[in-house]
């Protein structure tokens, strides 16, 4: 198997099931993608489509009542290929990777920090457990430096404060400081700005772009906001009900969307400046019940181009162009037609 030198994490045909309430929910149904050094990869999709589960699988943070059924997650770290899907989720090896090799930040920074410890203490912990600092004193010094890097004013004083004394934006900066403390190869951001104000959002993204440049970190950004994708992403994957339906270079996917779902997503976004006249096309219907999924293409019931063929099975992957993948029968038919002409 030849490997691109830049690939840090490779996810292949990942299947994950959740087993809550005596029911089985097939959350991920064959997800494949690659994270590359110094690149931002965005996963977009509606809530419940499995984007957070994908992120948690990579971090080994899946809940107890869930299981990786099939597929692999390979993490290229310190010259070795580590199969994350085979590691024990709470085992020592996985623990060493978390925080050191890869780190994660979450949606709501206000609840993601433990309210009873100071921000400094929580950053120190990460440093001390991955030999990032020799002593508590050293750790505190480094924490202050990190907070400063993340653009937090008065870091010397802030390091001694509790999370409730931080604003949302500040908390998220502190979270990023914590995540970056051991200079991980991969940073996973699970909707990092959803809970924040728009102006703060821009600042946080600025910070992430900066991190990408200076540390060569591979960033996996999970979002439901197409605007964010256009702004930040190098690569993008569009998810719907546990499948990646379209993926590839961000510019290619955004300018030449091939999957009806991607098109619909792009059509449903208002564009600032186009005024009242613009026609917004909301996607009709709603996401199906995960326990009662459509038999074939998951999007078929909501798709304007659906044919009986779409109900036979999930369409295979086909290339729209170099590095731009799409899973859609409609697209396949169109391509065949073009070839026949």
């Amino acid at each position, binding site marked *: 198997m030849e490997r691109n030198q830049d690939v840090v994490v490779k996810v292949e045909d990942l299947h994950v099931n959740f087993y809550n309430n005596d029911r089985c929910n097939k959350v991920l149904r064959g997800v494949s993608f690659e994270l590359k050094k110094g690149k931002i990869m965005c996963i977009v999709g509606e809530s419940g489509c499995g984007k957070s589960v994908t992120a948690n699988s990579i971090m080994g943070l899946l809940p107890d009542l869930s*299981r990786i059924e099939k597929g692999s997650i390979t993490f290229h770290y310190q010259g070795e290929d580590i199969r994350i899907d085979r590691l024990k989720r709470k085992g020592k090896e996985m623990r060493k990777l978390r925080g050191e090799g890869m780190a994660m930040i979450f949606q709501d920074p206000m609840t993601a920090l433990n309210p009873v410890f100071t921000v400094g203490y929580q950053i120190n912990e990460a440093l001390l457990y991955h030999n990032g600092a020799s002593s508590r004193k050293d750790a505190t010094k480094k924490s202050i430096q990190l907070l400063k890097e993340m653009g937090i004013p008065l870091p010397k004083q802030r390091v001694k404060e509790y999370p409730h004394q931080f604003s949302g934006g500040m908390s998220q900066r502190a979270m990023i400081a914590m995540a970056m403390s051991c200079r991980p190869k991969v940073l996973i951001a699970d909707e990092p700005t959803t809970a924040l104000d728009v102006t703060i959002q821009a600042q946080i993204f600025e910070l992430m772009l900066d991190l990408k440049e200076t540390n060569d970190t591979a960033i996996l950004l999970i979002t439901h906001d197409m605007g964010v994708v256009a702004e930040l992403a190098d690569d993008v994957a569009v998810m719907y009900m546990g499948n990646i339906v379209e993926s590839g270079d961000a510019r290619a996917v955004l300018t030449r969307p091939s999957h009806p779902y991607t098109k619909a997503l792009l059509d449903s976004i208002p564009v600032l400046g186009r005024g009242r006249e613009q026609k917004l096309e909301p996607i009709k219907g709603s996401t199906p019940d995960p326990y009662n999924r459509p038999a074939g293409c998951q999007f078929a019931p909501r798709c304007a181009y659906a044919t009986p063929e779409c109900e036979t099975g999930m369409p295979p992957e086909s290339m729209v162009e170099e590095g731009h993948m799409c899973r859609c029968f409609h697209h396949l038919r169109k391509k065949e037609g073009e070839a026949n002409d």
Partner: protein
Amino acid sequence: MSSLDRKMDKILAREEAGQIKKRMKNRALRKMFANRLSVAGIIIFVVILFMCCAAPLFTPYDATKVDLRSILQPPSAEHILGTDKIGRDIWARILFGGRVSIAVGLGSALIATVLGVSLGTIAGYKGGWLDGIVMKVSEIMMAFPQMILVLILVTITGQSLWNLIFIFSLTGWPSMYRMARSQMLSLREQEYVQALKAFGIGGMRIAFKHILPNAIGPIFVNITLSTAMFILQEAALSFLGLGVPLEVATWGNILNVAQDLTILKQAWWIWLPTGIAVTLFVISINFIGDGLRDATDPSQIG
């Protein structure tokens, strides 16, 4: 880990075969019956309640019948649980005593609930001076350790069955009042209440008809908790000889004789089965209460 894996395989296989369990429509009831402990609680509760209510069906003896020819007899075919110091049948006393103990516990809890909830609903909805006064009174009463307040009131009123019910109801209402009041305070500002007001519906009607039903879950949970507490307190008071007068059979009064060390050591049949009956009954009430709390708590997934 492997047992978890096996369980997951089982669910997966069932799911793939298309067998899904039918679910009960009412969410609260479904959760209640899914909780095995609360079902066990309901069964024990009903069985004990029925046996006490229909006591004559289960024993030929009377709870107060003295038989000096057969005193302190160990369990035998004639007396299943033996007899006490003056020859009364213990089994009969447990059954008939249960009637009084349960009546005191449940009755006081119900009176306290009616009292506390109506005060809480009215005062909580209206607010103002009435609420202020009732709140202060409840604060003072709740500052006392319950047991001490009960004993103080026993000193003032003297001992009798009705006094005890009166005292329990009097000491039990503040917690119900607080609960109902806090529900009122949080719900009366809601928009649907504003809408009802705009329709010109009377205040008390809104309070009792449209707001109170929202608190039905916590109210029932509170009734179970109070019932359990009062039954335990009646037992403790009667054990001290300060509860129901000794000539009335109650669970506490049967246990009273165990203060005598020779009876404690030699006549286990007098106090142990009675103690088990009390404990079992209180456990069953607690199970029901726990089940109710989980079932009516909308924040828990079911």
